[in-house]
C-alpha cells in the first residue's frame, strides 16, 4: 500500500509536469517571448501549434457563451446510443454463437472478415444510408463496439468452468436458467472488463463520424475550425474531447466497481 505522503508527492509531480508542459507550449509559441528559432516569421509557431492562452479563452467562450452544449449533447447521445446498441447486439450474437456450434462454424469466416475490415471506412456509406445526422454516427460506433463485446461474450461463455455448469445442471437448472444464471453472468464479467474499450470506441465512432460529415457535434466544431485555419479552436475542441473522454472513463470505473463486487481485486486481502 502506497503511503499517503508519497501519493501526495506523486500528485505534485503529475501537476508539475502538466504546468511545465503548458509553460513550454506558451513560451515556444509566443510571438514576443523568444526570438524565432526555427520559423522565419515569429507568428508562424502560433499558427501551427496554437497558443495555450487563446485555446483556453476559446474553450471558456464556448462554455460561457453556451455554444458548446448542444454539440456536446449530440456527441454524448451518439456515444451512448452506439454503446448501448453495439453492446446489445454483441451480447446477443456472442451468446448465440458460443452456445450453438453450428451457427458459429457457419458464420466464423464472415465474423473474421468483418472484424479485420478497417470499419472507419464505412462512415461515408453510413452517411449515404442514414444521412448526416445522429443515425450515421451511431451506426459507425455500433460497428466498432459490436466486435469488442461480441468477442468478449464469446470468450466469456466458452471459459465458464465445466464444473460450474455441471453443478448448476445437477442443482436442477433448466437450459434457460443456465443461460440466465451461469452463461450471462460469466459473459457479463468479460463485457465489463472491456467496458473501457467499448465506451472509448463508441466515442471514437461518434467523433470520427462527425468529423467526416455532419452538421452538429464536437467533431463538427473541429472540422469547421480546421476549414478556417483556426488552430486554437481545433486545439480547444481536442481539449474538450479529451476532458470528456476522461469523464466517461471515470464513470465507467464507478459503474464497474458497483457491478463487479464479486470479483477479487488486486490488493484486496479480506479473507476470514
Amino acid at each position: 500500500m502506497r503511503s499517503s505522503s508519497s501519493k501526495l508527492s506523486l500528485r505534485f509531480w503529475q501537476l508539475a509536469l502538466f504546468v511545465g508542459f503548458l509553460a513550454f507550449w506558451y513560451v515556444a509559441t509566443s510571438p514576443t517571448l523568444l526570438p524565432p528559432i526555427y520559423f522565419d516569421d515569429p507568428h508562424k509557431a502560433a499558427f501551427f501549434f496554437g497558443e495555450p492562452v487563446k485555446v483556453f479563452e476559446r474553450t471558456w467562450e464556448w462554455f460561457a457563451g453556451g455554444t458548446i452544449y448542444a454539440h456536446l449533447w449530440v456527441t454524448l447521445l451518439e456515444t451512448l446510443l452506439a454503446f448501448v446498441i453495439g453492446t446489445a447486439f454483441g451480447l446477443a450474437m456472442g451468446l448465440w454463437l458460443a452456445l450453438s456450434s453450428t451457427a458459429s462454424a457457419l458464420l466464423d469466416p464472415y465474423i473474421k472478415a468483418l472484424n479485420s475490415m478497417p470499419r472507419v471506412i464505412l462512415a461515408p456509406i453510413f452517411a449515404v444510408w442514414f444521412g448526416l445526422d445522429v443515425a450515421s454516427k451511431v451506426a459507425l460506433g455500433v460497428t466498432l463496439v459490436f466486435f469488442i463485446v461480441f468477442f468478449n461474450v464469446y470468450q466469456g461463455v466458452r471459459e465458464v468452468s465445466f464444473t460450474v455448469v455441471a453443478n448448476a445442471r445437477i442443482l436442477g437448472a433448466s437450459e434457460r436458467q443456465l443461460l440466465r444464471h451461469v452463461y450471462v453472468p460469466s459473459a457479463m464479467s468479460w463485457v465489463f472488463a472491456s467496458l473501457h474499450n467499448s465506451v472509448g470506441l463508441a466515442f471514437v465512432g461518434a467523433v470520427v463520424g462527425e468529423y467526416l460529415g455532419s452538421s452538429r457535434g464536437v467533431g463538427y466544431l473541429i472540422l469547421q475550425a480546421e476549414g478556417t485555419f483556426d488552430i486554437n479552436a481545433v486545439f480547444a475542441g481536442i481539449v474538450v474531447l479529451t476532458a470528456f473522454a476522461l469523464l466517461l472513463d471515470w464513470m465507467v470505473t464507478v459503474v464497474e466497481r458497483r457491478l463487479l463486487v464479486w470479483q477479487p481485486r488486486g490488493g484486496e486481502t479480506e479473507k476470514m
Partner: protein
Amino acid sequence: MSAAVPALALEQVTVTFVSPDGGRYTAVRDTTLRVQPGEFVSVVGPTGCGKSTLLNVAVGLLQPSGGRVTSFGAPLAGLNRNAGYLFQTEALMPWRTARGNVAAGLEFRGVAAVEANSRADEWLQRVGLRGFGDRYPHQLSGGMRKRVSLAQTLILDPQIILMDEPFSALDIQTRQLMENQLLELWQANRKSVVFITHDLEEAISLSDRVLVLSAGPESHPIGEFAIDLPRPRDVAEIRLTPRFIELHGLIWHAMRDEVLKSYAQQLQ
C-alpha cells in the same frame, strides 16, 4: 439388505472413452456397485483408476458404454434427479454470494426468493457459516467454500449424495472437522452416500462399506469390505482403535499391489 431396492445400482458398467483421433481408453470395466438407502459407501483406489468416472456415470453426466444404471429401481435417463453431487474442484458460482449459491437449487425449482434465502440462511448456520451469507466465494477460505458447497447440495435433500474427493484440497485439521460435520449431518438425516477418495483412512473412518478399485485402465472392483466400527464416530479418535487398525491393514493389503502398479504406470 439385499432384498431392498437399492438407492443406486451400477450393474456391469463399462466406460470407454473415444478420442477424436480414434484412440480408445477404457476407464472402468464390468463394475457393479449397489448402494442401499441410508448406506455410506466409500470407493477407494489409486490415482487415475476411474473413481470420478463412476460418479459421473451415477449422476448421469456420462453415459456408460455398457451396463445399466438404476436409481430406486428406475433406469437412469439424463441426470439423476435423486442425486446431489459434491465436486472435487470449485463448483460455486463466483458471481453469487454464499447465500445465493446455497439458495440456487431451490430457485431453480421455483421456490420464491424470500423463502429460498431464509432456508439458505438456516443451512449456512447448520454448516457453521452463520453471518457469512453476504460473502462472495473469493472472500471465503477453501474450507468455507466447501461448506457452502455442502449446504448447496444438502438443502435440496437428495436421496443420494455423491462426493468426489470433496475434502482432498483441505488441510488435515479442516478436513477432519469437515468429516465430522459430514457424519453429524448424515447421522441426523440418513441418505445414501457414495464417497470417492484415495485416502484409505478417510474411507474407513466415514463408511459402512469400502469398495476397492484396481489401478486403471480397465479398473474394476477387487475387494469389498464391511466396516463394522460403532457409530457415532469421531474421525480423529476412531483412527486409534484396534479394530480400525486391523481393517486398515486388511484393506491396505488388498490395495497395495494396485497402488504400486499405478505408480509404476505414472513413471513410464
